[in-house]
């Protein structure tokens, strides 16, 4: 079907919302609570638009498109309403972009920028705020929370850990863990789904604070090295140091839909570990010494050859790995079968 956004015709399919059609066509409408995964909450009200033939303003995130629908996203009435919402959100939090981890990756910042809000019109927030850093990997700064509810939906409906909820009501509404416990004392398993869903700098990774600006990091997709579910990861890297800074889940992956567990998201230190081996080692008199690749390979080849010659192929065994790639396992079993000449290859699938 065809819908008109600001007078221009766009192709849309039934079931889509106005916001989805707009975003798909790179027409920005401010939105703070909408996320493909957590759904059309229509709570933040920043995405209001005019729809011809409908009274008042409509939230575009939950407004289904209909054939020939005419939508205006940039009239004065619309922009004024959007501006009030975003201004109120800015006014009621401690949104100091300069010092915020999410600077450059903040949906509130994007909305304010689009609407030309340079500073909040009011100061509603209380200077007495506490940062909850009791959790091992996650920091919660409620003074930046805009009550979008994405973390709560994620915790309860996506990862279904059922730890997060709203507490209190009205202006006093805040996110709580269990019975309003510090995050680190709660039943939170630190899967980080809330971090991934937070549109602002309220729930963030503790270990990346100060580690790098989002625009300085490269992002590459890969697969988690832990269990066999095969969650797709996006790894954020600081190229200047070849260092992994943070890991997020890939939202459109059919295996994990952006979800990860505490290991997959935070357990990446081993890659950049100081304990990594960087040189072949040869044991002499019970002690390891560094050796060159040439020396080590030559030693291994000659030992395998001599043992094979003396005791037969079946005296050599190989353990392939459940942690390396298909290609490497293929090469390994080919080596054992072809070069050693035995089927004595196994790995720890059973262990």
């Amino acid at each position, binding site marked *: 079907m065809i819908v008109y956004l600001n007078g221009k015709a766009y192709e849309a399919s039934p079931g889509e919302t106005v916001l989805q059609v707009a975003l798909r066509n790179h027409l920005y409408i401010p939105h703070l609570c909408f996320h493909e995964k957590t759904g059309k909450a229509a709570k933040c009200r920043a995405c209001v638009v005019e729809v011809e033939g409908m009274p008042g303003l409509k939230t575009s995130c939950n407004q289904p498109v209909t054939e020939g629908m005419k939508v205006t996203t940039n009239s004065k009435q619309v922009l004024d309403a959007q501006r009030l919402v975003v201004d109120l959100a800015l006014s009621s939090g401690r949104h100091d972009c300069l010092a915020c981890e999410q600077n450059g990756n903040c949906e509130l910042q994007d909305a304010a920028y689009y609407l030309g809000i340079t500073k909040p019109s009011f100061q509603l927030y209380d200077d007495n705020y506490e940062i909850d850093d009791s959790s091992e990997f996650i920091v919660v700064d409620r003074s930046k929370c805009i009550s979008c509810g994405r973390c709560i939906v994620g915790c309860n409906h996506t990862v279904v850990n*059922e730890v997060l909820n*709203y507490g209190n*009501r009205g202006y006093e509404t805040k996110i*709580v863990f269990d*019975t*309003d416990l510090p995050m680190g004392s709660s039943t939170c398993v630190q899967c980080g789904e809330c971090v991934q869903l937070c549109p602002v700098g309220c729930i963030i990774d503790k270990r990346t604070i100060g580690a790098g600006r989002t625009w300085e990091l490269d992002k590459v997709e890969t697969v988690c090295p832990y269990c066999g579910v095969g969650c797709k990861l996006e790894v954020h890297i600081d190229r200047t140091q070849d260092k992994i800074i943070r890991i997020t889940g890939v939202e459109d992956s059919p295996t994990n839909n952006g979800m990860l567990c505490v290991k997959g998201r935070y357990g990446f230190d081993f890659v950049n570990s100081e304990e990594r081996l960087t040189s072949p080692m040869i044991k002499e008199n019970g002690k390891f010494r560094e050796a060159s690749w040439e020396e080590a390979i030559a030693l291994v080849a000659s030992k395998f050859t001599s043992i094979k010659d003396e005791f037969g192929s079946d005296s050599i065994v190989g353990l392939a790995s459940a942690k390396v790639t298909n290609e490497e396992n293929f090469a390994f079993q080919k080596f054992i079968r072809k070069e050693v000449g035995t089927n004595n290859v196994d790995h720890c699938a059973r262990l």
Partner: protein
Amino acid sequence: MYKQIFGKYTPKKENLIYILHEIQDQHPEHYISAEAIKIVAEYLSISESHIQGVLTFYTMFSTKPRGRNIIRLCESPPCFLKGSEDILRQLRQLLEVKIGETTADGIFTLELCACLGVCGNAPVMMINEDVYGDLTEAKVESIIASYRGGK
């Protein structure tokens, strides 16, 4: 206590508010403890955070221990027009507490509330389940005295 209350309600989430009301009413300190939340969560197979969320949304529930008698003074416009501010001032003096606090002897907790629907008799307050209307300073004094006297 929980056994007796749970006996009345099937373990469905829709009974949560009933169950919380009963637990709170039966607790000598009129509140819902973290322990109670845990027990109810288990009974209804819902999360503790869900209960915490519900509990702190509705004004009739408290997560902190309160006095034996809960005074809830209406602060809505009809009572305000009829002088609820004066009544509040007097209650604070009489009880020597601020809003939301419990008297040192544990007899009263003073709270404000929204319209109780007895506006024809404004200003109004509720002590536990009893409504007191057409409050005057003299009336408040005698009501407080009657509770202090062991009512």
